[in-house]
């Protein structure tokens, strides 16, 4: 777990600043013309049930490795300039930031494609698990809606 804003891949307990992450990304190149960002936040309702809190657990080392693979493949396959991926773990309240993907490129088309692919790939390949707390108890969420 690292909290250095220069690290392009991070899994951390604390919140992140989207502005700071984008400003860090802008420093990578003066040719960046478009930055597409996806932010995942904690929703209040899941399958009709009110959620009071979320908890995230990850497999250390493997999760970071998968995120780095996603970053490298995004740069290579979509021709973007750079990408950063930050995922929080531990306790997260409704409305709080969970995951951030920042895709920067010369033109906007590739940044949308890369960002959308990266979040789907993160959900598919990165060992991170979510536990939802509702009025009926706690449950590990096993599907990817």
């Amino acid at each position, binding site marked *: 777990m690292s909290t250095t804003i220069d690290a392009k891949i991070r899994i951390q307990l604390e919140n992140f600043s989207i502005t700071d992450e984008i400003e860090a990304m802008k420093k990578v190149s003066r040719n960046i013309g478009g930055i597409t960002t996806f932010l*995942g*936040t904690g*929703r209040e309702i899941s399958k009709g049930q009110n959620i009071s809190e979320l908890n*995230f*657990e990850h*497999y250390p*080392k*493997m999760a970071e*490795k998968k995120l780095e693979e996603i970053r490298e493949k995004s740069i290579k396959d979509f021709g973007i300039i750079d990408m950063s991926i930050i*995922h*929080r773990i531990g306790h997260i309240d409704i409305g709080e930031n*969970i*995951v951030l993907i920042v895709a920067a490129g010369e033109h906007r088309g590739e940044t949308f494609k890369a960002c959308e692919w990266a*979040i789907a790939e*993160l*959900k*598919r*390949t*990165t*060992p*991170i*698990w*979510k*536990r939802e707390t509702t009025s009926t108890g706690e449950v*590990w*969420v*096993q*599907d*990817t*809606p």
Partner: protein
Amino acid sequence: MITIKYFASLKSIAEKEEDSLDIENPISIDQLSDIISKTAPKMGAVIREKKVMISVNQEMASADTIIRDGDEVAFLPPFSGGSI
């Protein structure tokens, strides 16, 4: 010594987070699953029903992947991705 790790929902099924097995090796994931089933039948059932993925040294593995002394085997329930 083989290190075994359980995550998320599997921790309560296995009733532990980590285990160290001093077993003869190299063996396949399939053979390891048999050994686990003997001492932890509920966990064995989950593995047999393919409700989990398995990694060896942080890379995805399959039933015939061979594991050796010092390897880290992890049982991974389906990922939630942590967002929508």
